[in-house]
């Protein structure tokens, strides 16, 4: 049975290629702790004194993971993110599905924005949302503008069809202002 095995192996290899990045499918309800995201970890501008600092490590374990992003989507609703930012189109708060990031668009920047609040109306959720959930929400926020892998981004919800679901959002390319000197144009 060597030849059937060979065919099975090649098919399996094909399947492996297709489903690569199975980090996507892990469901770790505890969430992996992610390193420091304090003031040291983020910048809000694109201007650096001297050489630009190297960017921090990327946290694929949250934004590449379908479960975490999906949890983030649920928390986005539960914690009333959506009542200010709508389903990404914005309302009281700025839209989250476009290509502009006022306070920076990296996962760490969003994490910091949620925890610290921002002066023009973004409340601080420090102490209110546990760390791993903040990462989940931040990952979901990035999925709103297509920054997360398509296969990990959420599909439609069982609710009013407000917009194309996250996995079908074209990836918005953040413009030069990102990760975001405070570009207050039209925003809080």
């Amino acid at each position: 049975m060597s030849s059937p095995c060979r065919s099975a192996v090649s098919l399996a290899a094909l399947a492996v290629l297709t489903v690569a990045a199975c980090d996507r499918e892990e469901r770790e309800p505890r969430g992996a702790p992610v390193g420091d995201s304090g003031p040291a970890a983020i910048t809000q501008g694109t201007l650096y004194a001297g050489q630009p600092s190297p960017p921090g490590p990327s946290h694929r374990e949250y934004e590449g993971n379908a479960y975490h992003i999906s949890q983030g989507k649920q928390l986005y609703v539960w914690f009333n993110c959506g009542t200010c930012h709508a389903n990404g189109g914005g309302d009281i708060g700025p839209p989250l599905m476009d290509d502009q990031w006022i306070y920076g668009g990296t996962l760490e920047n969003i994490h910091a924005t949620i925890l610290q609040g921002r002066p023009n109306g973004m409340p601080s959720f420090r102490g209110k949302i546990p760390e791993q959930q903040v990462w989940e929400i931040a990952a979901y926020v990035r999925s709103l503008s297509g920054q997360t892998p398509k296969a990990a981004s959420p599909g439609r919800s069982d609710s009013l069809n407000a917009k194309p679901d996250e996995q079908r959002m074209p990836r918005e390319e953040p413009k030069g202002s990102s990760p975001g000197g405070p570009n207050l144009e039209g925003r809080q």
Partner: protein
Amino acid sequence: MTAGTDTAVVRRDGPGLGEAETNARLARSWATPPGLWGWLSTVDHKQVGRRYVVTAFTFFVLAGLLALAMRMQLAGPERTLLSPDRYNQIFTMHGTTMMFLFAVPMMEAFAIYLVPLMVGTRAIAFPRLNAFSYWVYLAGGIMLWVAFILNVGPDVGWFSYVPLAGPQYSPGKRVDFWAQMVTFTEVAALAVAVEIIVTVFKQRAPGMSLNRIPLFVWGQLVTSFMVVFAMPAVMVSSSMLIMDRLIGTHFFNPAEGGDALLWQHLFWFFGHPEVYIIFLPATGFVSSILPTFARRPIFGYTALVLALFATGFLGFGLWVHHMFATGLPHLGNSFYTAASMAIAIPSGIQIFCWIATLWDGRPRFATPLLFVIGFIVVFVLGGLSGIMLASVPLDSQVHDTYFVVAHFHYVLIGGAVFPLFGAFYYWFPKFTGRMLSERVGAWNFGLFFVGFNLAFFPMHILGLIGMPRRVYSYPAGVGWDELNLLATAGAVILAAGVATFVGNVWHSLKHGVSAGDNPWGAGTLEWATSSPPPSYNFTHIPVVTGQEPLWTLPQGLPAQGLPVVGGLRVDQRELLLTTVVDADPDLREPSPEPSIWPLLSALAVTALFIGSIFTPWAVVWGAIPLAVGLIGWFWPKSPPDTPEPVID
């Protein structure tokens, strides 16, 4: 090429060819090319059938191992061997594999192998489609299991109820792999169903009128029709699911006008007939084994055929009894109660006929018969608990509990796996030319029977005292601990029974007693050729004069003494087509040569299906290689350059 009446003349020999020369020429015409190429391009229904058997049995063992893992987890309360995530994937994979990758394909496997032999033809209808169906099935199964191994296994149950299986509550691609696996296997099943229907209707040996068709073939025929009507429902619903998940349609989104119950209706419109799709071929096994070992023609042939039809029709009218708890109108529920109860009548008739056959026969208790007796003991119990489930009030208590788990394992293992093991022991000599060990067979049966009852009987009680299905853990002190431990112990014994079987096969393949053409003294046509049969099945197409053609031979005559027809070409693949009702010779029809295109087409389909898990564009781009594959497959060939046909 219409066969003139002259070709249908019953005769013993070809005009100019001797028996040996006929066989040699047939072997050349029907040969599968050697080597890997031949292995990949074969269209021989026996090779494909064997592959189906081996593949489906492999899935059976894998899914069984998953069942063992579940029983280990549930051996005691609050055990943490498996995380809920892993457990949910495991029970889903168990159910999915058993239903989609083992039970139905296994029944098809026997159909593919045996139906052409039993109806006395050289090949199955549409042999390339047959090869294609196997590759598609294999690809679907491998895809699902690779996904499972990579932690992308579906985790929402084999029934994948929405909204749990929908995009919101099942992020990632786990459910998509499940849904596409359904598409893979149902494409395969539909292909096989069409082949079987055509083979049975048009390729029966002359004389095999409707009332002489073996019951196994009847069973497969009714099953194939059920497949044709039931499988599209699940393909449609799984495609709707994948569209909901991938491109944001709203079939199952109640907020935007969809309906969560729509899924259940579609799924169970397939799901309940599915049970009979598995069960009816198994009754064919029983009706084949019993006469042989009771050494008496089956009692109630007509009643059994009518029971098959009745079951086939009624099977489509009961799906709502899976949904009694969903709050559908009570009047409707009452209708489905009546229908579900009514299906007990044909089943009861079948049981009576089998027992009556045994009653009036002179039984020889070989392993196949043991399994058939085990089948009756177990299946009847499952059928009776099924009557309880048909009652709305009783169902409201035991629905989705371990009572149901017990019930359907009694019905499915009892109704399908016991006969299947019987069938293995019965036809293994035909498949391989060697006998399985009878002594080990008795052990196999004993362990399997005891282990099965020990594992599943306590589950009836567990369900009644409140244990729901699909729980990865249960609290101590509710009174479920001891029975669960008992069930786990039974599962281990059951597994030992299966292991015994595997060992028996392993050993017998090499060292089994040589079987000969007809070791059991059976009466149907598959025993009229060598074991294993040659690529062309029969040197001469036999003429059938009774339900058990080999038993209607004059005493003492070997199977070669059958009357035969001649006039088919031996230098090319050619089949004899007969009329639907009376099986009068009708046409001579060429049969396709081996081809690599079914495999290539299957690979194209695989790429399309797997690709469309990730992007809808795969349907567009994947259609191109598929079109190439199909063009290659159906590329018209000029007629073979042989002015003088050589006939037998």
